[in-house]
C-alpha cells in the first residue's frame, strides 16, 4: 500500500485526513523544517511541501508573500528535496511536493522525479498543469512511482472530471470554490456536488482545499470528503509570528501557532459522526 493510501486509511477515529500546506524555507530552512515536523507530530496525515515560485498564479496574497520570503532567503528545488528527505527520516506519513510547472520544467522533468524518489516523496501536485498538458509528466511520474495528484474545480465539466479521475493517482484534489488560495468566510455548498461527482468516477480518496480558514469549515468538509487541505490559514500564522521582535520569540510563536491550529483542526474533524 502506498503511504498516501495508508494516510487516508489510517482514519478510524477521524472522519478525514488532515493535509497542511507550507512553503519550504519560510521564514528560514530550520524553522520551516521544525514547522513541518510539528504539524506531522500534532496530527497531519499528509503534508504538502511547497516549492516557492515567482509567479504563483493559483495563489492568493498570503501564499504569494510566503513564496517571496522563501525566495528572498534563497530557497529553490534542492532545498525542497533536502526538506523532504529530512522529514522522511522520521515519518512514514504522506509527503507531497507542490510546485508550479515552470520551475519543474527548468529543473528537468526526469531529474525532478528521480530526486523526488530519492528524497522519499510520495506524490506531486502541479497546480498549473491541466490534464491536456500533463501526458509526459504523468508518464514519468508513473515510471518513477510518484503519484501525480490532479485537481478538479467547480467549473470542470463532468466529461473533464471523468477523464481526470481516470488518470488520477494518490488522491483527487477538489478545489472548493472559484478563485485563488486564501481563507474564506464561507464554504460554497457547490463543493459537495463536486465531491459527489468525482467520487462516481474514482475509488481514490477525495480531498478538498482552497478557502479553508479554520475548524468549522474543516468539520464541514470532513462530513463528505476524505481529506481537508489547509494552506493559507497555516501560512498566515507564520506571517503573524514574524511581527515578534526577536528570533527566539518568532520561532516560538510560529511553532505554537501551527501546533495549536493543527490540534483545533484535528479535533474538528474527529467528532464528525458519519459521512453523508
Amino acid at each position, binding site marked *: 500500500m502506498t503511504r498516501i493510501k495508508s494516510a487516508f486509511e489510517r482514519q478510524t477515529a477521524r472522519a478525514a485526513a488532515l493535509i497542511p500546506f507550507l512553503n519550504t524555507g519560510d521564514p528560514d530552512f530550520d524553522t520551516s523544517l521544525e514547522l513541518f515536523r510539528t504539524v506531522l507530530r500534532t496530527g497531519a496525515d499528509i503534508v504538502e511541501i511547497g516549492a516557492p515560485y515567482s*509567479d504563483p498564479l493559483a495563489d492568493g496574497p498570503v501564499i504569494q508573500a510566503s513564496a517571496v520570503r522563501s525566495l528572498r532567503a534563497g530557497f529553490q528545488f534542492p532545498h525542497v528535496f533536502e526538506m523532504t528527505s529530512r522529514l522522511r527520516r522520521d515519518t512514514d506519513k504522506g509527503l507531497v511536493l507542490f510546485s508550479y510547472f515552470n520551475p519543474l520544467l*527548468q529543473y528537468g522533468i526526469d531529474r525532478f522525479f528521480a530526486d523526488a524518489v530519492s528524497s522519499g516523496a510520495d506524490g506531486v501536485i502541479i497546480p498549473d498543469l*491541466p490534464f491536456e498538458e500533463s501526458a509526459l509528466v504523468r508518464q514519468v511520474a508513473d515510471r518513477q512511482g510518484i503519484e501525480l495528484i*490532479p485537481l478538479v474545480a467547480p*467549473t470542470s465539466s463532468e466529461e473533464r472530471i471523468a477523464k481526470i479521475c481516470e488518470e488520477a493517482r494518490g488522491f483527487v484534489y477538489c478545489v472548493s470554490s*472559484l478563485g485563488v488560495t486564501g481563507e474564506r468566510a464561507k464554504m460554497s455548498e457547490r463543493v459537495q456536488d463536486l465531491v459527489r461527482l468525482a467520487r462516481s468516477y474514482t475509488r481514490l480518496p477525495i480531498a478538498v482545499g482552497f478557502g479553508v480558514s479554520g475548524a468549522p469549515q474543516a468539520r464541514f468538509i470532513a462530513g463528505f470528503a476524505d481529506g481537508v487541505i489547509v494552506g493559507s490559514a497555516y501560512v498566515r500564522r507564520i506571517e503573524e509570528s514574524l511581527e515578534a521582535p526577536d528570533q527566539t520569540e518568532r520561532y516560538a510563536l510560529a511553532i505554537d501557532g501551527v501546533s495549536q491550529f493543527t490540534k483545533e483542526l484535528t479535533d474538528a474533524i474527529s467528532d464528525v459522526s458519519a459521512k453523508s
Partner: protein
Amino acid sequence: MKTTTQLPDKNGRFGDFGGRYVPETLMSALAELEQAYERFTANKSFQDELAYYLKSYSGRPTPLYFAERFTEHVGGAKVYLKREDLNHTGAHKINNTIGQALLAMRMGKKRVIAETGAGQHGVATATVAARFGLECTVFMGEEDMERQALNVFRMRMLGAEVVPATSGTKTLKDATNEAIRHWVEHVEDTYYIIGSVVGPHPYPRIVRDFQRIIGDETRQQMLDLEGRLPHTVIACVGGGSNAMGMFYPFVADESVRLIGVEAAGKGLESGLHAASIGKGTPGVLHGSMMYLLQDEFGQVTPAHSISAGLDYPGIGPEHSYLHASGRAQYVPITDDEALEAFYLLSKTEGIIPALESAHAVAQAQKTAREMSPDESLVICLSGRGDKDVEQIARMTGGVVDDEN
C-alpha cells in the same frame, strides 16, 4: 498557403510553443471561449459589425505613409510607416479590443477585465467598454501607474476601475498575474480581454487574428503604391501583438524579411533589458510556453525597458515559433537608441512615436542604411508618443535634447 499559417494546432501549439498551462478552474472557460470564437467570428454579422467599428469608430484603414525626410536622412531603402498611431486612442490596441468586446457581448458577458503595461491596452479596453456599456476593470502595475499617470486618468475618465498590481515587480507581468487571478474568481460572468499575443490558447490566436488587419492592409497598400511587396517589415515586440498582426499576412511570402525588435534596455549584458529571445530560454508564463527571461531554477526574472509596453519578460508563442523556425529575426534596441529614434522621427517627419514604436524606428535606421534605394521597408508605427512626453520631460528636466 504554407503550413506555418495554419497554426496553432488543435492543442493551441505553435510548434513547441503555446498550450494551456493554467489552473483547472479556467479550462472550461478557455474551451468555451474557443468555441464561441469559432462560432461567432465565422458569422457574417460579426465580421460586418467588426468592419463597421474598425472603420467608423477607430478610423481604419490607417495610412501607409512614405516617410520621405526620414528616408533621406537615413539613406538607403524607402521607409514607409504603417500609421497605427492614427487609430482612435492612439495605438493598434483598439483593433483587438473592439473584436474581443464584440465577442464578449455575444457570449453574454456584461463585464470585462484587462491587464495593461503602458496603459494603451487599458485605455483601448476602457474605451470599448464605455462604447458598448460594459463594466470594466483594468489591472496595472503600481510602477507603471506612476510612469503612465496620464493613461490611468484617461481610463478612469472613461469609467473604468484601475486596480494597482502591487505584487512582484509591479509591472505588466504582475498586472497579468492579477488579471488572471481575478478571472479565476469571476470566470462565470467576466470576459478577460488579453491585450497581447500571449496567455493560454486560444488567446494568442484570437489577438493575432484581430490584429492581422495591420498586415493585411499594409500588404494591399504596398501593392497599390509600389506594385510589389515590401522587402522588409519591422515591428517592436513586447508580448508581440502589433508585430504579430503585421507579420502574419507576410509569413507565407518568403521574400519578405520580418524583423521583430526587442527592448534591450540598458544593454543585453547589463541584466536590465526585456530581450526574451535575445537572452531568454523556453519556459512557461501566463499559461503559455514561450521564450522567457528566467533564472536556472525557472523563477521569472524582472524585465526592464524605458517603455512600459515592452517591459515584459516573455514573448508570444507564435513569435517564439517564428524565431525557432528561422522565419523571423529578433534583434535588440537599447533605451538610448530608442530615445534617439524618438527624437529623429519627431524632427524629420513631425510624427512623435510611442517609445515602444521608437524601438522599431531605431532598428529601421540600421536596416534601411544597408539596403538599396529601390528596396522598401515598412515600420509598424504601433502608437503615438503623446503618452511618453511627460516621462521624457521628467527624464530630461524639461529640456529637449537638441543633440539628437
